[in-house]
């Protein structure tokens, strides 16, 4: 494993809705090493996207980082000025979003949007920037790159737009790429192309990837390590092999059982009862307790800590802590 590249510790991001304060991300800590691909998994509302936006400091007006630190290459991102942050965004940390159409500017041509990033972060002429744009577009597998730079986003298909987004993210050769559901809006044959491309960029340039997704299949194919979130908290963190072979947290177990697997002819899928609670009605104690098939009395009273397990993983569950204490 390489050097630690990104260290998020005790991050707490809060959204203010009138008088209410909602902790969308609550005491989240994790590390990404150089060249590593880490998956951040969870269902809607678990705080996975807010975590990534906090790292980029791109939270919308209602959201605020209340606590914690985010160190990138030894530098605390939360202590930087907005101008210093702009030098990091798109240059050292880049982001790819789920819906490429809403992330590309519809009134600028593709070439101009990518040139802009190069010119902002480097001392180059427009001509040099354009050359690099075309080169990067070719690297992400866009045919006729010389013509595409003169086209608008709406003239491209969904898969092509996502390639443009990735090209834009990769053009300054970032050390970290945050990909928030990069293939969710795409068809499965196109998804396979985009995942292939990301894997190649990771190998060739050594770019570390934080891959945010709800799709456990994508995680199994892409990631080395996985962080599972539920209701703003990390509930499990482990390497990808152990996650699928021995999931510890009952939530992780439930997620895996709920996912249909090809070629496995089960009569019925496993499931997790009930619904994800909303942030303003979080249960006392462990947030998963009301849905947990193994919940004990203590789970409804106290919040379990994220503790190390014997196999090197981390798990936030009293089941394992009780065993240890005994």
């Amino acid at each position, binding site marked *: 494993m390489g050097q630690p590249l990104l260290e998020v510790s005790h991050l707490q991001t809060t959204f203010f809705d009138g008088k209410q304060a909602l902790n969308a991300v609550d005491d989240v800590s994790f590390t990404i090493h150089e060249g590593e691909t880490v998956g951040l998994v969870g269902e809607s509302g678990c705080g996975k996207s807010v975590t990534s936006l906090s790292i980029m400091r791109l939270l919308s007006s209602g959201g605020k980082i209340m606590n914690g630190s985010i160190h990138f290459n030894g530098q605390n991102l939360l202590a930087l000025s907005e101008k210093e942050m702009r030098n990091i965004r798109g240059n050292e940390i880049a982001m790819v979003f789920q819906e490429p159409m809403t992330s590309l500017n519809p009134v600028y041509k593709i070439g101009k949007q990518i040139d802009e990033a190069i010119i902002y972060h480097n001392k180059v002429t427009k001509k040099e920037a354009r050359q690099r744009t075309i080169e990067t577009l070719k690297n992400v597998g866009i045919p006729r790159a010389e013509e595409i730079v003169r086209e608008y986003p709406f003239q491209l298909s969904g898969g092509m737009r996502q390639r443009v987004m990735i090209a834009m993210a990769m053009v300054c050769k970032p050390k970290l790429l945050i990909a928030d559901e990069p293939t969710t809006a795409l*068809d499965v044959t196109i998804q396979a192309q985009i995942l292939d491309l990301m894997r190649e960029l990771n190998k060739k340039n050594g770019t570390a990837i934080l891959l945010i997704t709800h799709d456990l299949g994508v995680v*199994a194919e892409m990631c080395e390590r996985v962080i599972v979130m539920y209701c703003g908290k990390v509930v499990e963190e482990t390497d990808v092999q152990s996650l699928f072979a021995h999931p510890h947290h009952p939530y992780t177990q439930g997620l895996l059982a709920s996912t249909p697997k090809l070629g496995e002819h089960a009569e019925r*899928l496993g499931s*997790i009862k009930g619904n994800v609670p909303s942030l303003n009605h979080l249960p006392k104690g462990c947030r998963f307790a009301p849905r947990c098939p193994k919940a004990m009395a203590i789970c409804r009273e106290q919040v379990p800590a994220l503790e190390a397990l014997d196999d090197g993983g981390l798990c936030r569950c009293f089941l394992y802590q009780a065993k240890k204490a005994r």
Partner: protein
Amino acid sequence: MPEPLVQVKNLKKYYPAQSGILGLKKVAVKAVDGISFTLNRGETFGLVGESGCGKSTTGRMLMHLTEPTDGQIIFEGKDLASLKGEELRSERRHFQMIFQDPYASLSPRMSVRAIIEEPLIIHGVKDKSERRERVDRMMELVGLNSDQADRYSYEFSGGQRQRIGIARALVLNPDLIIADEPVSALDVSIQSQIVNLLQDLQDQLGLTYLFIAHDLSVIEHISNRIAVMYLGRIMELAGKKSLYAEPLHPYTQALISAIPIPDPQIKREKIVLKGDIPSPANPPAGCPFHTRCPKAMDICRTVRPETIEKQPGHFVACHLYN
């Protein structure tokens, strides 16, 4: 012996479109271009394909939400495609639909009771107490508490809303449920609740499902037979086991190999297709898949392949097998 419930014959939907300078050239977008299949009573028939393949249009044509351009939909000896007005309305009660987006398909201005009750009113159940009782029974059947019937749909979560949509579809005791991506907007843990509910209801009520989805893992789990569509045509149609164990069409092979498997132990050789899905406004001549097919031959570029029954019950439209 399977008993056919609905027979779809050579169904087509062409949309008029214009192209060329000033839109002078009239062309047809062939959203569905001559497909045939049979739905057997009590089975789940999966319709799978990528965006723009015509799977949703097919479902909507069965419901008459979209008028077919040509072809037949035969149900109990009648051709539904040719029915109109009152006759169509009374036949349509046998088919019901569940939609993809439970946020968009339920009116925010109606209570849950009003939503589930509406089909009963339209189809002439005049007795108010009977309607009340049937709504309550439906809500319990799909796992909702009938005490909540006077709430509005926006007070419910996505999974619960989808249950409301299912209750609305079932309240008229239909024979066929057309489920268009019923779980793709839901979270994984909720998705499996709904899939299990649909299977339980099928066992209890003997329903037939046309299950439309892009997710091949879900389709494999729930379906008995599956048709794979591409650009308005059925490329392959087979029983679940033989389709996944022995996919014949190169498109099906690529589609299956592209599914990410939630098990890092399994490493497969992937078939990564080149290029994008062509526009249905300008589909390639011959086999519509030839532009991306790794096994394309000369004939594929010019001649549309006939559908043949390669093995009993396993149909494929590909020149490799002719």
